[in-house]
């Protein structure tokens, strides 16, 4: 059973518009139609000049984040029906500069991710000599969930601190800092704690939980940030033992 919905699309080109406007389109939505489907239909049949970013259409690439009816969501992971409204308003993600229309600029967001050193730091791991780290399932589970992050920026758009604090790394970056800190292969614990123990670091999180509310991958960045802060406060210090390299004997 299809229903007709009105899609309102935010239109703004900083290069020559002084004001933003909404363009409205009537679209036929089936129960399985996603907001991305609707936008691509509009782009194909009604107005091909709308700028938006997408790639995988299956909540894996993290490109299609936008503000849909006031909440940051992935357009490809949000069905028109589940919004329970005949009007669907699409805006670019807040807290990101606007490139054009629904396309947001992720430069600062990715720079903050990089400033967390999102890689294993361990000089032993550099020696590729056939040896490998062995991790128990419990050790993997300490960081696995955080490594599911697809860098879609929904959490960054929802965070009240990011809304005003340009120097705050944001939920995505801080959760990744915890992901590497608690990985038993990583040795840079002190360096990592120094980076986030800053006037604009982990302390500017007040556990408003909005990041975890909108995360489409179950990363629960708020959990990562509280565990990071707890570690900094000296809690759970025994939860990390740096792993040794083992040579796997051929059977």
């Amino acid at each position, binding site marked *: 059973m299809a229903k007709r919905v009105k899609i309102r699309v935010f239109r703004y080109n900083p290069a020559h518009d002084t004001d933003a406007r909404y363009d409205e389109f009537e679209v036929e939505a089936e129960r399985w139609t996603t907001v991305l489907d609707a936008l691509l239909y509009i782009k194909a049949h009604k107005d091909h000049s709308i700028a938006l970013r997408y790639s995988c259409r299956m909540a894996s690439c993290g490109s299609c984040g936008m503000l849909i009816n006031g909440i940051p969501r992935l357009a490809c992971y949000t069905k028109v029906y589940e919004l329970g409204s005949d009007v669907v308003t699409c805006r670019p993600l807040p807290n*990101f500069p*606007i490139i054009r229309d629904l396309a947001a600029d992720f430069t600062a967001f990715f720079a903050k991710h990089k400033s967390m050193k999102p890689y294993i730091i361990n000089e032993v791991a550099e020696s590729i000599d056939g040896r490998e780290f062995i991790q128990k399932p419990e050790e993997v589970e300490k960081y696995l969930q955080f490594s599911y992050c697809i860098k879609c920026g929904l959490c960054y758009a929802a965070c009240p601190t990011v*809304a005003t604090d340009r120097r705050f790394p944001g939920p995505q970056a801080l959760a990744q800092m915890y992901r590497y800190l608690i990985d038993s292969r990583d040795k840079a614990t002190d360096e990592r704690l120094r980076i986030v123990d800053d006037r604009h670091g982990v302390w500017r999180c007040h*556990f408003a939980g909005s990041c975890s509310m909108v995360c*489409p991958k179950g990363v629960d960045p708020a*959990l990562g940030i*509280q565990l990071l802060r707890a*570690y900094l406060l000296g809690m759970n210090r025994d939860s990390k033992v740096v792993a040794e390299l083992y040579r796997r004997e051929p059977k």
Partner: protein
Amino acid sequence: MKENREGIKGWLNPTRYGANRFAYWLQRLTGLGLLAYFIAHVIETSNIVYGKNAWEKMLAVTQTTEGHIVLMVVIGMCVFHAANGVRLYIAEHGKGIGRPGRPEYPYKPTSLGLGMKACIWVSVALAALAMMYGAYVLFGEV
């Protein structure tokens, strides 16, 4: 416009993103309210050093219906801020927020589980009870 930061509007709206965001909003509001009261209160009590007359003049201004309503609000703010502050103290030390695992659809975040939500509403309820008791004491005498 181009920056598109949500700005202070993002702080001021407690209706999106559930109970934790509401608690964040109320913790800030009550923190600032208590700070304002605290400063006014230190100024108010300083009248004592100017003798009985000055003290009673101050009481004539503050021990009024309006003054009692302000005190009720202060009591409510105090109780919510303290109770929620203890919750934040515990959560920010990594307790009571679950542990990471293998997320399964529909990906309910453990950190926003029932425990935290219950603590928030209990804090609100305690504040309401304290305000009622305060009203009973303040208005009950006259």
